[in-house]
């Protein structure tokens, strides 16, 4: 197998605050191969977005990457000078955010915004730029793109706005798109459409994707592999089908049990008891232990990282494994 496109190893991103250091990303490792879709799933606040921003060097001040490496085609991009990072952003790795009505600039035409994004990496005439933008809008299924270029974001529907954002992210044919909950703010019917289209787009263009969502159902319909995140760590990862069929980590099991499609009709959805721990005062050892039905005293020690073929998990008492 060829070297992965992206190799993240031991990534730690922290925010110093008045109350202490928030360890938002706490030793995360994963790889993404060319053309692959990796799903990153976990409850809100588990550090998914911060992970995404860390990859392109856009952690909000005063946060910083405290440790670890992010290798893009073998080259570590953590701590690169800002102009070198800027040359990567949008060109090799681009990002799509949750709410398209917040990401697009309301007072610039869609065409102007796309042209700014184009010119961030290329010298291009207005005419050629326009043609590129029209093609990009067409690619994401926006009807009458030539005319729509002169429209403002508020003249688009939510789904169409997100398509514009996706078109901007794809302008430079990046190797990797980080999609941070790109359908969460949309209507359910439009969500499904965009999911299907983005999956097809990724396949057709050979773009790899990190698909971030708090919703296991969405992720599982998109991703080739999934990584389950909890309190700043990846607690389980592996091929989507395997992990869903046969989860190893009790937290993954809990997420699965709270999916409506899996619970029997008439039965209450089993939600995971308790709440996510504060990242300021993480318990020693496994952060999920206080909520875990299988927890034992030993869980106060660091859980070992188990590797089982193409899957990994971080648990003292994994499910479905004979001790």
């Amino acid at each position, binding site marked *: 197998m060829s070297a992965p496109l992206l190799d993240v190893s031991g990534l730690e991103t922290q925010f110093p605050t008045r109350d202490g250091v928030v360890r938002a990303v706490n030793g995360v490792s994963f790889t993404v191969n060319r053309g692959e879709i990796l799903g990153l799933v976990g409850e809100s606040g588990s550090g998914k977005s911060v992970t995404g921003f860390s990859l*392109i060097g*856009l952690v909000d001040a005063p946060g910083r990457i405290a440790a670890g490496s992010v290798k893009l085609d073998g080259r570590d991009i953590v701590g690169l000078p800002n102009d070198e990072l*800027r*040359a*990567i*952003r*949008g*060109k090799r790795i*681009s*990002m799509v*955010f*949750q*709410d398209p009505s*917040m*990401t*697009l*600039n*309301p*007072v*610039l*035409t869609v065409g*102007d915004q796309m042209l*700014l*994004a184009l010119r*961030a*990496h290329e010298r291009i005439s207005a005419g050629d730029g326009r043609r590129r933008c029209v093609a990009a809008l067409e690619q994401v299924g926006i009807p009458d793109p030539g005319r729509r270029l002169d429209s*403002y974001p*508020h*003249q688009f529907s939510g789904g169409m706005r997100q398509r514009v*954002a996706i078109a*901007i*992210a794809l*302008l*430079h044919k990046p190797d990797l798109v980080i999609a941070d909950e790109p359908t969460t703010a949309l209507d359910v019917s439009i969500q499904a459409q965009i999911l299907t289209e983005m999956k097809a787009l990724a396949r057709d263009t050979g773009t790899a994707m990190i698909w971030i969502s708090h919703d296991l159902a969405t992720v599982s319909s998109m991703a080739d592999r999934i990584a389950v995140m909890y309190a700043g760590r990846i607690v389980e990862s592996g091929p989507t089908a395997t992990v869903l069929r046969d989860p190893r980590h009790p937290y993954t099991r809990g997420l699965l049990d709270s999916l409506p499609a899996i619970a029997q009709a008439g039965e209450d959805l089993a939600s995971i008891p308790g709440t996510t721990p504060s990242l300021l005062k993480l318990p020693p050892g496994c952060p999920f232990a206080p909520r875990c039905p299988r927890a034992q005293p030993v869980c106060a020690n660091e859980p070992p990282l188990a590797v089982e073929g193409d899957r990994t998990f971080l648990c003292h008492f994994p499910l479905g494994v004979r001790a």
Partner: protein
Amino acid sequence: MLGFLIQRILQAALVVLAMSALVFAGVFAIGNPIDVLISPDATQDIRAATIAKYGFDRPLWEQYFTFLGRALHGDFGQSFVYNMPVGRLILSRLPATLELTLAAVLGATLLGVPLGMYAGYRPQSRFSKAVMALSILGFSVPTFWVGLVLIFAFAVNLGWLPAGGRGATAPLFGVEWSFLTADGLQHMILPAINLALFKFALMIRLARAGTREAMLTDTVKFARAAGLSERTVLLRHVLRLIAIPLVTVFGLEFGSTLAFAVVTETIFSWPGLGKLIIDSITSLDRPVMVAYLMLVALFFIVINLAVDLSYAALDPRMRKGRA
């Protein structure tokens, strides 16, 4: 658009009309101008003749309608003090105030907005803190005091700049302007700085607050994630996002300075409208006061209209009737 304009012009006419009635009644209440018009030892006959000549013996409403009828034909009466038509008197003073105000407001904006944006972009830098200290100074030091200090320092002590008057002027469009001659420009510098200081502080504050807020938006994050340079983000995205409050304050400050540059004009003996209105109040020059206050109302109406129109230009969401 045309309907909007017509509606606004009708509104404006109504406001000016109401203003004229209020001012007319108000000025009538201030005092009887007959005592300034004739010397105290004039005979009863002269007194009666003068009263009849100006129509002071008529009821107030009749005087008002006579005034209104003439005003509609552009005749605002004779100044009691200057013995010339009020319209011509005001027009002869307007250019002096106009050029001083424009210099002050434009200078404050062109300097204050970039400084404020920088202070919002890098709030922690030493330079930004110095800028903010300067703006606090601009807010808290009274205009007359700054004017006196300026004169004392630059005119009296250093002898670099003249202390008062308009200096040499040159004609343009049949009106005399100071900014067209080197001497006139020198004369403008100190009063313009005096007038500009508060507006400069205001623009810094506004631009800083807007920029700080805008830098946290997803719009800026998304633009950065697309690889835009910080410069492009600031100039193309942030400046457009914060433009509306800046334009609003620009308009308000422009209008109020045009109307009430009294203190500065008095300190620097600048022969503008502010000095004219103060003089006319002390001498109970009734026609000047009435016409002047109506003109002020008109200023604000025109400026408000210009601000509204620029809103539509700056923010597409405010354009009505266009989908």
